[in-house]
């Protein structure tokens, strides 16, 4: 899922300090799972802002809510009757959610409350690690289920490189070498013959090429 971290409180404070009515909107999707932008974080941020405004002697209305997902219009529309009350909104969704909200509420000032980081897994609570870079043409079938794009620091398709040292990547001895992982997994699967023929150059046209990517699924559209 999408992984994010809360923005530093001082950054959010700096943005909203001159408003008097601010709505904090959490998202119950990805950002709830990594504890960066769910209802809980919305409550904490709202409380912190209320404390800030109160101690500064300023009358302010700071409210919080959370939507099932901010990357869908139907859920964003649930805010439509209360949006007028607020001068500014802090969205705790990923960058997609923030933008979609800004698009729907065109005349409203919307601030991002999290820094969106990557697509990753929860290794432990509070430890999230990147696993996929959404390249648009998945090659996990050839690489033992381990992604060389996300997990080889050089995104090599025919690794490992000469910098692989005792299972670690040369850029940092704490980072496992993606290709060492691929080798070990293919060995376990009895598929080491994959290393005997080079992987063809990857078609990157499905990745960050040609501007924002779009998926059109005619089978789903009416």
């Amino acid at each position, binding site marked *: 899922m999408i992984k994010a971290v809360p923005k530093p*409180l*001082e950054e959010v*404070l700096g943005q909203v300090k001159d408003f008097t009515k601010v709505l904090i909107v959490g998202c119950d999707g990805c950002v709830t799972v990594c504890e960066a932008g769910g209802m*809980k974080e919305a*409550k*904490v941020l709202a*409380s*912190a*802002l*209320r*404390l*800030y405004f*109160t*101690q*500064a*002697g300023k009358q302010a209305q700071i409210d919080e809510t959370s939507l099932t997902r901010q990357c869908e219009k139907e859920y964003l529309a649930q805010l439509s009757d209360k949006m007028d009350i607020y001068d500014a909104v802090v969205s705790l969704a990923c960058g997609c959610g923030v933008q979609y909200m800004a698009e729907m509420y065109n005349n409203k000032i919307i601030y991002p409350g999290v820094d969106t980081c990557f697509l990753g897994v929860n290794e432990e609570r509070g430890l999230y690690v990147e696993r996929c870079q959404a390249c648009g043409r998945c090659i996990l079938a050839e690489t033992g289920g381990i992604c060389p794009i996300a997990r080889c620091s050089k995104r090599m398709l025919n690794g490992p490189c000469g910098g692989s040292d005792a299972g670690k990547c040369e850029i940092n001895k704490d980072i496992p070498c993606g290709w060492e992982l691929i080798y070990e997994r293919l060995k376990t699967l009895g598929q080491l013959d994959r290393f005997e023929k080079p992987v063809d150059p990857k078609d990157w046209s499905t990745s960050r090429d040609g501007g924002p990517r779009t998926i059109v699924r005619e089978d789903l559209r009416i």
Partner: protein
Amino acid sequence: MRLQYPPNVRIIEVPCTGKVDIMHLLMAFEYGADGVIVVGCLEGDCHYSAGNLYAKKRVNRVKEILDKVGVGGERLAMYNLSSGMGGRFAEIVREITEKIMELGPSPIRVATGKATGPIAEVTT
């Protein structure tokens, strides 16, 4: 054992400090507490194994928030005591009350005009 501690302290009991949520601490300050202490078992002695370690992290996070919003992180503290340390508990409460007296009423209570005398909250 009858121990004297200052009467302007309100004790809120919880089964384990692991139950103390960030929002409980923040709300105490929103409602105008001048200071809050969280008192848990000794580290390694929590009956639920790590409740007091979670509490410590939450307390630290809230201290940081209080600093950034101008309330002051020094108004919140965590202590670890065993159930046999009642004397030390009373002493800590006295010390913390004195410290809060020195700091004066919380800026929240001053701003909302509710400042009459200091209130301290203790969570055990």
